[in-house]
């Protein structure tokens, strides 16, 4: 019974939350705090703040932790499954359909015409990361780190994961 509730609590935000994990967090709060009363608002925001300080996708971190807190390991697994599975199954079905017709001229046009939309979506994400960075650390550290990482990745072909690891160390030592 608790596991079924757990499934519903994370299935609904997963299927309604457009715009990736962060967009579904208020919906999760609505279920977990408002509907099922598994935790208080302040407990929820503590978990959210902590989850944001850790790497990885936020929606599954929240689901895993809350599920574990309420109903143990089975709860964690059910909550994560409900978060991930519905939209993933939809994506696989859609892309499978696209792949079946990938040689048709219409699908080629679709792929081509979607590209400008991707440019804008990714461009806006890039802008948002810089805007948040500017707000939290000011323009000088932002430009220095951005320039250094551009040179390291573009000129010296260093894998992004290592550049990020380097930034984390520099941030822990000199910023904040």
């Amino acid at each position, binding site marked *: 019974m608790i596991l079924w509730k757990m499934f519903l609590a994370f299935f609904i935000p*997963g*299927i309604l*939350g457009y715009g*990736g*994990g*962060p967009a*579904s967090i208020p919906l999760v709060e609505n279920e977990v705090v408002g509907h099922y009363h598994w935790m208080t608002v302040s407990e929820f925001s*503590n978990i959210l703040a902590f*989850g*944001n*300080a850790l*790497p*990885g*996708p936020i*929606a*599954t971190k929240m689901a*895993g*932790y809350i599920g574990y807190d309420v109903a143990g390991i089975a709860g*964690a697994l059910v909550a*994560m499954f409900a*978060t*991930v599975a519905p*939209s*993933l199954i939809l*994506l696989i079905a*859609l892309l499978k359909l*696209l792949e079946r017709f990938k040689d048709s001229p*219409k*699908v080629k*046009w*679709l792929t*081509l*015409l*979607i*590209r*400008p*939309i*991707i*440019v804008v*979506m*990714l*461009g*806006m*994400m*890039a802008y948002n990361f*810089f805007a*948040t*960075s500017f707000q*939290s650390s000011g323009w000088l*550290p*932002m430009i220095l*780190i*951005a320039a250094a990482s551009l040179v390291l990745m573009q000129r010296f072909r260093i894998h992004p*994961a290592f550049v990020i690891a380097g930034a*984390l160390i520099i*941030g*822990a*030592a000199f*910023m*904040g």
Partner: protein
Amino acid sequence: MNQEGENRSIQKSSLAIHRDLFVAFFRSGIVSFGGGPSGIPLIEAEVVKRYHWMSLEEFGDMVALANALPGPINTKLAGYVGWRVKGLSGLLVALAAVVLPTVILMVALLGVLARFQDQRWVRGMTQAVLPVVGVLMAQLTWSFMKNAKKGLGWIISLILVGLSFVLMEVLHVHPAILIALTLLLVLLKPSKKAGERK
């Protein structure tokens, strides 16, 4: 591109492919701070540039459709790539690599480390990562801009980028609606005229 990637993965043992999937998604998951979207360029670095599991075009279609569907983006990408490379077992390995390490970290550390979240060095780490993710995202944006130019030419690409920008950012049309409309237009029009959406 795709052919080449498939040939390469055929030569590898099943275990090696699962290991590659795990490494690719563990690495891109564990260094993506600030929620799912920051993982997109990292996943591209692994899936397109390093392991050649798909071409940039295929990656673009996947990101566009994944963005048009609800739910967390990172796990949708990991699950689909895993599924394409190695079926259901690939899907599970890729998902586990993205999700489990950070969930386990969270469950294990929350009690002990909750007081660290206000520490200066923790904030410093998050601050230092943001510009790097911005650069990664901008680089990926540029790859798709070049890609659009290759197929549509500079002028049409720029017009369509401008149009999408106005629709999504000024008029706040949801990307899912824009992508669905593009799909409808392409399906309804005769293929030669499909480009006349502008």
